């Protein structure tokens, strides 16, 4: 297939990708959009197949079969609660593929006399560097989310120095390559240092920042793919990769009101002694209530807002929450759900879980719409959420989450917190909300507590 024809056909794929993203602006068309995107991808694969011709066709087919069936099986089996780690995994393999392409391309362009064009070697070096960081970083994020390793931040002395040295080393070898030193091992060093850097830079990041990290790694893979487009002089890779790169960066900025540098280098989630002291200081007592008491509160309220968090997801309680909500609606209570953008473990995760439980999406309120409503809410029910309702984010400057936008549940007349125990949340930070006189705690597994509430509301 000619160069021009294949590029024109790739353009159709690009349009399909843009439409796929465009259709995501409404839940009604979103699925069709994804199908258009998939069709575009199939077109690109067919075009490339024809372009490459008969060379090693069986190897390509075999490799696609292996990778594709792994992807299909993993994607079919995964539970909706485990979605973030699945996205991290697929993101990582994409970054890994970009790094491998860079390696192979360098191997191809290096031996002939005369240095490769600067833009080609620059593309190779950067895509190897970013792709490798994305690969190893995503694998660590996967391991953290899958709880293969602890979610709490891991820090050690001199961490930032080691990270800085690794990054500069990786970049230095890359610059030497671009500068004309024709030695393949330089790229190996770049890749090795980047892989290690990726591990070390995700390890210290606490669980509460996982949504930001996943967005960032997603952007990294996109950028690595776009750079791969420069190596191979392929428009499709440049445009599609950069679309993803731009979107990941934007999502990350939206997901949290903190600077990127703060997330990456701040060793977030590390509770300073000062913050702990402040939290303990304004302590006071925790009030615990029985399911019957809470059922009465809910049934005689005018307006109830549910604030779901990751605890709801792990307990698989989304279906029971919806049942409780339906029951309350039958009693004339106005029910809605306030969703923090980073509730769960990736942006929008909670929306997916509630959609799975058939909650009508008009009832799902985003943070900016939900917050003004709390002052006229009778009861806010916090189900397994913690950091996203922590008032310290507004008031306590020494808190590690200071400045993060939160749901102002403490504006409601009363707050009910469903929680397993008094342990701090995923980020390991104390929450003064639990000591607020307006708050009552209903201890126990989220699913069991909600089921008890359903039974008690029925009996009223």
């Amino acid at each position: 297939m000619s160069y021009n024809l294949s590029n024109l056909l790739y353009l159709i794929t690009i349009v399909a990708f843009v439409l796929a993203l465009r259709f995501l602006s409404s839940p009604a068309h979103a699925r069709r959009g994804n199908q258009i995107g998939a069709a575009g991808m199939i077109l690109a694969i067919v075009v490339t197949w024809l372009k490459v011709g008969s060379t090693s066709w069986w190897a390509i087919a075999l490799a696609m079969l292996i990778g594709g069936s792994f992807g299909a099986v993993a994607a079919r089996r995964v539970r909706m609660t485990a979605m973030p780690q699945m996205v991290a995994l697929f993101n990582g393999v994409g970054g890994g593929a970009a790094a491998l392409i860079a390696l192979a391309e360098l191997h191809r362009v290096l031996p002939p006399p005369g240095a490769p064009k600067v833009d080609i070697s620059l593309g190779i070096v950067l895509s190897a560097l970013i792709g490798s960081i994305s690969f190893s970083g995503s694998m660590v994020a996967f391991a953290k989310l899958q709880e293969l390793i602890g979610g709490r931040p891991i820090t050690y002395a001199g961490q930032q120095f080691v990270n800085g040295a690794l990054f500069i080393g990786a970049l230095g070898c890359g610059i030497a390559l671009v500068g004309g030193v024709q030695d393949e091992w330089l790229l190996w060093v770049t890749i090795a240092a980047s892989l290690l850097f990726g591990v070390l830079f995700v390890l210290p990041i606490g669980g509460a920042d996982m949504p930001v990290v996943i967005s960032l790694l997603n952007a990294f893979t996109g950028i690595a793919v776009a750079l791969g487009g420069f190596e191979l002089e392929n428009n499709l890779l440049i445009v599609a990769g950069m679309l993803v790169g731009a979107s990941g960066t934007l999502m990350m900025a939206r997901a949290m009101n903190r600077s990127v540098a703060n997330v990456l280098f701040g060793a977030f989630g590390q509770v300073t002694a000062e913050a702990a002291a402040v939290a303990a200081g304004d302590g006071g007592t925790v009030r615990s209530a029985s399911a019957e008491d809470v059922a009465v509160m809910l049934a005689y309220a005018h307006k109830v807002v549910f604030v779901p968090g990751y605890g709801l997801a792990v307990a698989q309680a989304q279906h029971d929450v919806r049942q409780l909500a339906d029951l309350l609606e039958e009693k004339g209570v106005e029910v809605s759900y306030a969703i923090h953008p980073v509730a769960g473990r990736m942006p929008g995760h909670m929306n997916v879980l509630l959609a799975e439980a058939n909650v009508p999406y008009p009832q799902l309120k985003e943070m900016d719409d939900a917050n003004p409503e709390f002052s006229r809410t009778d009861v806010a029910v916090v189900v397994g959420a913690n950091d996203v309702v922590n008032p310290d984010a507004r008031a306590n400057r020494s808190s590690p989450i200071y400045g993060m936008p939160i749901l102002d549940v403490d504006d409601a007349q009363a707050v009910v917190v469903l929680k397993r125990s008094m342990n701090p949340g995923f980020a390991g930070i104390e929450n003064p909300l639990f000591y607020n006189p307006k708050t009552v705690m209903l201890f126990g597994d989220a699913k069991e507590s909600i089921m008890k509430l359903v039974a008690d509301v029925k009996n009223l």
Partner: protein
Amino acid sequence: MSHDTLLVFEVTILVLAIFLGVEVISKVPTLLHTPLMSGTNAIHGVVIVGAMIVLGQPDKSAFTWIVGFAAVVLASANVVGGFVVTDRMLEMFKSRERPKKPDGT
């Protein structure tokens, strides 16, 4: 087309793609951020095109052979997994009818 002309074109579309990406993504509601992320995840699976080009080179060394094969395996896991996961999520957002509340309750 000379190499430099091509490069200028490539940089042009790169920059335009950034603006296009920001423009399109900013219209996606928070409600759909997880499918958006897994959808973009599937899109960067387009790296499979590059991986196929590498593995499909004629007269390649054993090294290129192995690296290219691994790249195609990883990229196809990315493509298939990405689209399937996104589809599963979006399926749940689709056409959900809820029984209407009886009047006057």
